[in-house]
């Protein structure tokens, strides 16, 4: 089967039932998406498929339709995505393990709602963080929204 990941086409010869997460991590050596729960509960494995946040640990790789973007694919060369830059500015990550998924969920949120309210953030940001970085995530999303708004 063929997959497009971060703009690169891959030929993959694996069990189509294998979740996308493990195809990315173990077969293609793309380590940004993390394994947290295996049941779509925590969001550490979040990737974007055609811009939609998808929990890759429960999506069989054979069912993937669309272009996959992982955390490795959102920066423009050396230039970080506004969400990544805001994350650094606010020093969001502590252990950092959930942050690939958090950042992609935030990118997807800002793509659909450029100026999200607190309720929008509550509804979109369902990923688990055991370090409790939520208040900083919220602040960083609002800042990233400003940065993106200034650009457009």
């Amino acid at each position, binding site marked *: 089967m063929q997959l497009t990941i971060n703009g690169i086409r891959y030929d993959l010869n694996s069990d189509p039932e294998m979740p996308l997460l493990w195809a990315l991590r173990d077969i293609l050596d793309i380590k940004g998406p*993390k394994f947290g729960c295996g049941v779509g509960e925590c969001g550490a494995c979040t990737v974007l498929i055609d811009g939609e946040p998808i929990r890759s640990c429960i999506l069989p790789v054979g069912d993937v339709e669309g272009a996959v973007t992982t955390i490795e694919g959102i920066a423009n060369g050396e230039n970080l995505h506004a969400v990544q830059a805001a994350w650094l500015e606010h020093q969001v990550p502590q252990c950092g393990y959930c942050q690939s998924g958090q950042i992609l969920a935030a990118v997807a949120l800002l793509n659909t709602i450029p100026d999200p309210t607190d309720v929008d953030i509550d509804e979109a940001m369902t990923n688990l963080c055991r370090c409790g970085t939520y208040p900083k995530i919220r602040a960083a999303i609002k800042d990233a929204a400003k940065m993106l708004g200034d650009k457009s």
Partner: protein
Amino acid sequence: MSRLGTITRRSFMGLGVAAAGGLAVGYYMYRKPYANPLLAMASEGDAVFNPYVKIAQDNVITIIAPRAEMGQGVHTTLAALVAEELDVSLDQIKVEHGPPAKAYFNAAMIVEGGPHPFFDESFIAEVTRGTMNVVGKFLAMQMTGGSSATIDAYVKMREAGAAARMVLIEAAAIQWGVDAASLSVSAGIITNPADGETLTYGDVAQAAAVLEPPTKISLRPRAEWKILGRSQPRVEGFEKVTGGRIFGIDVQLPDMLYGTVKMSPRFGARAISVDTSAALEVNGVLDIVPVETTTGSGFGIIAENTWAAFQGAEALEIVWGEAPYPANTDDIRAVLDKALNAKPDFEMGGKGNVEKELANTQPGNIVEAVYEVPYLAHATMEPMNATAQLKDGKLELWLGTQGPRIAQGACAQLLGIEIEDVTVNTTRMGGGFGRRGEIDFSLYAAALAAKTDGRPIKVTWTREEDTQHDTYRPIAKSRFKAGISETGEMTAMDVDIATASIMTSLMARTYSSGPPPGPEKIMLEGALGQPLTVPNVRFRAHKADLQIPVGFWRSVGNSYNGFFHECFLDEVSEHAGKDPLAFRLSMMNDDEHHPAREALKKVAAMANWGGNLPAGKGQGIAHTLSFGTWVAQVVQVGVSDDTVKIEKVWCVADAGLVLDPENFKAQMMSGIVFGLSQALDQEITFSDGEVEQSNFYDFDAMRMHQCPEIEVELLENSPRMGGAGEPGTPPSTPALANAIFAATGQRIRTMPLSHSIDFA
């Protein structure tokens, strides 16, 4: 006031000074340094100055931060200690964890494990702390835990930076033929003001490293600090926003295999029978091997990828033996109950005569309450995993571990090889909270590596395996009894706490030995050692004999005793007819309680405590001194439609001296969310000898929509430096329970609070 001033000056001279002065015997051995582990592994051209600093020919400066980076920012703060004195900026350096070595012992962790309250400045307490510091070195513990990393490093890592800077300047002085004192240094560049000539550290590193290290080091006064005391960007921040391959689970090696484990769901039991046929038929599964270790018994699955290994584990058909403990939570709780009502195992830290005082108190002036908390899992975001390769009798490990030396020894013992033949590479960690100080994940990887003909294997646990094979925060139950005078003062407090012994459990699984002698202070910490002026007080610990693995969990005993103690003070204040804040302040009358009083007053001001709140809202207050840090919190809840929303938390922390304020505040915030998560449905229960919860759908933690606004301020009244990683957790749950009482009139004495009330 004069006494506090003295303590401040002395303690800021450094913990190392006080410790060495506390004990004459064995002074020489104590001062004699351990071998520098960097010398053995230095590359061609590396100039090694001490165990913390090396400079390569290309001017790359590496600082060793030998503690687990699991989110608490310790690599940044430890590197800052060295960089401050070395006179380089944090973006000029590389930070590495370094190898397991005796040189990296953690003395501070042992020191505060002693029996005396943190603020006890008596001669006996000082001598005990001094002695235990020396013991810490002889045990050569390289542990990350007890919120101790920065305290331990505060003097020695600054000295390491200063010592390196001094010989680098001296080498430049020799090269130029001038007096070292005439040279200036900034950002790693040495300048001769006489002629404007400059040399980088890399230029003189080789010559400097062979010079005699200085015997007299003077550290920069705080007023001259450029890095310390200021918030720094994390050294690993960039990797953490770009999906960097920094965690144990990201390790990738040539020719690597993948595995997982299926261990007995009944602790201490083994398989009676196993049918591996279906598992071996799973596409990609290569082998199923038995795993027998001190931490558990079960099977390892060796496969071509992690997904295959997980499917193989699921396809195993195993009949397990019976558990050596009561099979159901109700029966386990009955053991706890029985322990609480039996003779205590030990008593410590009391004074006066509690029994006499309570006997003389009118029954109407006695307050009694019973509290209980369940077992809890750590639920780190990154499930347990480890990578191992056994080749030519030598084992190499890649571990996200809080205790590399302990893992190294345990794996050597398991495989029957010498400890020198075990190499440990410590990775960054997706959360630790005490869980990653355990050896089980390392042992299982080592056991599987023995079956792969020299190929490396990464062994990843499923979330279900992780949840069901934790070393849990113990279950605990307590009875608090207080006597109140006619004027509303607490005249006696009698505390009985029943819980499982962490040390008994830990020593058995880690060293196959019994617990260390003496009372286990952690059973009482958080109730014991709190700033409270009561003339008659007694603390008694009751050990519940339960062979369910229990271990260190963010703030350990403080996580439940803080809840018990601070909920109880709230109840006593109610009976005394006093405001909870005013009551607490009136019971903190010793000079040493000054930081607690100030923290409470400040947090109350931030929260506008006592102000008019709209109907349906309530505020609760709590203070816990743990790991040397005084933390006061106010939680505000709003109740509507019978559901409780945690709206806001105000927090004031006093750690004496804070090296990175933003990171410290982030740790408080993190500790609060970790603490409050307990209230929201967290519990580990048992049925048929097995843990009933398995994944985040039945053992969850706080999410974004539940997370309150959190405001943190810092004070510096405390005479000694305290920790950051854990002290934010203990006061959060009692402040929440007290807020719910203020809003609803309902006292909830059992965790999780969600059993008694609905959260939004």
